[in-house]
């Protein structure tokens, strides 16, 4: 071969290699995501460049939004301009390579997973580290029934003869309560559920069940229509659609892959359908020692959410055929009655749902002889007012209003007194205003001292 030939070949190879390098430089992955974002309908196109968010809390630039352009703000209480992404998610805020950026994510996609929640949601000055235990939500949740599943474990073991009393002994993880004084029915501690049970026993069956859902430590291992959810705090506060599909603007989240929240958004206005993704999904079959999924729900291809409004859906979707329920249980959302302490725990360990739940019909409706207990809002920064603001219903409540106080001292900010004998409730999710009738002065012959909500259902049950 001649010299010019080799000179030509060598120069050509070098030129090709350098051209490839230039092409790579001008075609980073984030550019592709931005182009796909811009191609969506109803978005304001962004310039194809590196985008940095500089949260005021840290002052350090975060490049996450370069790929996650247009992702929904997680909530009004967690503005991205203040907190950014990394304070919750971890990860490398300066990396634009997917793997590098995500390598140190806290809890993978879910920083609220209970294994890491203490360092994300529960970090000091967020939802943990306060002198007031009420504000340490993550600590409370870890001891709550939703995380320990103590009641479910105890009752199933008791039903199958694995323990002599229905008193709870095990939690999904070990927990203990260091409080000096325990409230009635609270337990001092729970042992961790055995990780190596004898094959064939109910414990072995339960372990596989516990590994695949039914509590906040995990997500369902085989999620299907109506059961898509996250774990940890996000299990409740991060809303999933029935079909588990994402409907936001962030193009990096696959639209056709079930198992994503409906949007990148946390809420305290949790719709019943979210609770529904765990509760009332089926029943334990005592004969087969299995959990049987409900078979009376509409098929996957035609979710109810596409067919009818929530009120109609709830009858079919939520309440199982044997369930009894009243009108407010049909119209309100679960969170309109079940308080934060009921759902997330009061900081103590309980062994059964009935020991932890305490809100009754009379909490809001009173009894034939008493009106519901109320408290006046005195400070603009009171918890009740803060919660009203965070739920987007700041206009409903103001200083000077009287709201319902539960028997454990929680204020129901969404139920206020509007006249001496008149109460109004705002739906936390729907924003609808309801009249709350009082038992006092009605024809009801209930004995408020001895009768619980079960009795109310005898007369006020809705007929299907």
């Amino acid at each position, binding site marked *: 071969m001649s010299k010019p030939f080799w000179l030509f070949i060598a120069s050509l190879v070098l030129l090709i290699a350098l051209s490839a*390098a230039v092409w790579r430089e001008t075609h980073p992955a984030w550019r592709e995501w931005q182009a796909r974002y811009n191609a969506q309908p109803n978005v304001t196109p962004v310039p194809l460049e590196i985008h940095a968010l500089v949260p005021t809390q840290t002052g350090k630039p975060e490049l996450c939004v370069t790929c996650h352009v247009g992702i929904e703000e997680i909530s009004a209480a967690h503005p991205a301009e203040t907190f950014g992404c990394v304070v919750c998610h971890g990860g490398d805020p300066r990396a634009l*390579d997917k793997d590098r950026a995500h390598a140190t994510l806290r809890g993978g996609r879910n920083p609220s997973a209970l294994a890491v929640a203490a360092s994300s949601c529960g970090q000091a000055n967020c939802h943990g580290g306060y002198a007031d235990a009420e504000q340490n939500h993550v600590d409370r949740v870890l001891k709550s029934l939703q995380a320990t599943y103590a009641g479910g474990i105890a009752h199933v073991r008791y039903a199958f003869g694995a323990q002599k009393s229905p008193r709870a002994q095990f939690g999904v993880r070990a927990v203990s309560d260091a409080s000096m004084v325990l409230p009635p029915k609270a337990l001092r501690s729970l042992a961790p559920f055995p990780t190596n049970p004898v094959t064939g026993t109910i414990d072995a069956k339960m372990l596989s069940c516990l590994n695949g859902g039914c509590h906040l430590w995990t997500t369902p291992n085989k999620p299907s229509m109506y059961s898509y959810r996250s774990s940890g705090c996000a299990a409740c506060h991060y809303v999933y659609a029935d079909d588990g599909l994402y409907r936001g603007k962030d193009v990096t989240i696959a639209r056709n892959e079930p198992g994503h929240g409906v949007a990148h958004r946390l809420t305290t206005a949790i719709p019943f359908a979210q609770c529904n993704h765990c509760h009332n999904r089926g029943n334990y079959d005592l004969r087969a020692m299995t959990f049987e999924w409900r078979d009376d729900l509409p098929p996957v291809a035609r979710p109810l959410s596409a067919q009818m409004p929530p009120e109609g859906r709830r009858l079919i979707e939520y309440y199982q055929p044997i369930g009894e329920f009243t009108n407010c249980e049909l119209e309100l959302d679960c969170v309109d009655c079940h308080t934060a302490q009921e759902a997330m725990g009061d900081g103590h360990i309980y062994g059964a749902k009935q020991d932890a739940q305490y809100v009754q019909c009379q909490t809001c409706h009173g009894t034939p002889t008493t009106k519901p207990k109320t408290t006046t809002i005195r400070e603009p920064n009171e918890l009740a007012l803060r919660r009203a603001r965070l739920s987007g219903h700041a206009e409903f409540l103001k200083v000077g209003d009287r709201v319902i106080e539960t028997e454990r001292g929680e204020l129901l900010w969404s139920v206020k007194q509007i006249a001496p004998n008149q109460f109004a409730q705002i739906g936390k999710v729907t924003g609808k205003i309801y009249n709350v009738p009082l038992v006092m002065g009605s024809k009801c012959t209930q004995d408020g001292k001895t009768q619980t909500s079960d009795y109310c259902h005898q007369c006020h049950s809705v007929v299907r």
Partner: protein
Amino acid sequence: MSWWRKEKSILYALHPEKIPASGARLTYTFGLGGIAVLAALVTFLTGAALTFYYVPTPEGAYSSIVLIQDVVSFGALLRGLHYWGAQVMVLAVTLHLARVVFTGGYRPPREFNWLIGIALLVITLIWDFTGYVLRWDDGAYWAFLVGTNLLREIPVWGEPIYRAVVGDTQISAAALLRFYGWHIFGLTIVGAFGIIYHLWRLQKDGGISAPLLKGGETRTFVSRDELFFREFVVGAFVIAALVIITLIFPAPIGPAVNLDAGVGDVRAPWIFLWVQNLLRDLPPLWAGILAPLIVLLLMSLLPFFDRRGPGRAIWFARERWKPQVLFAVIALALIILSIREAWR
């Protein structure tokens, strides 16, 4: 093109007017020395560019590398060429050394240049190790800790040497800065001088080693133009290969070091995997200090035991089987130990 006169080109001028054709044969040298010099040059130039972006502090080091990789324009290419240039340099230097052993190129009068070459190998390895440390990722941090602690194993002088190298009683922000200083400044001065001296001495020793002439033979030569041309072609291919390797295999960076998580994944750079493997079985003084010194000493002494007789500048000359077998055994041992460690 009146401004272009090859006679006025400094690169052209640095080349000898002619070199023996036998030494210029590709199958004799495989261009390994030249490739090593080219790789050093690529590493030097890209390294100079990287100094504008790298931050030699424990807080800033890792994230500045992430910035170089992901944000700085052509940063990934620069760092990739720097990394792969360095790997190619280590590989070329090592193979060049093997070539010299297997051809007996170190025979007099080149034994002194052989020692310079050994010194350049050591400089190259330290260069590589100090560069590896600058990554400040999980693997590099712990390798830094283990590597420097090995110095303490030296009897009597261990602590003073440690405090001279690390500049402190333990790994600290200052130690990172010192390694950075050594990497970009100290070693560069010594290394650049060593390379220039090695090349100058090569010319003074009569160029690339060539077989002794038999009766009636005359030496043929290759002109400076021809040499220049060959260098350009090989150089273009090597640089293209470096660019392509960089595009396919970006320079690695592990997870950030997390001191709260305890001792992470201690991982020596690949050139020292054999030392890491020895450390698992032998006392640190033997594995980390004496073993490498013995290997170096044996290498250094080769030209003083294998001085004369037939076989100069001939590949695998039977007459010189002893040094070749010794070298092969050592090389094989190091390779096996490295593979053992890599597969753990």
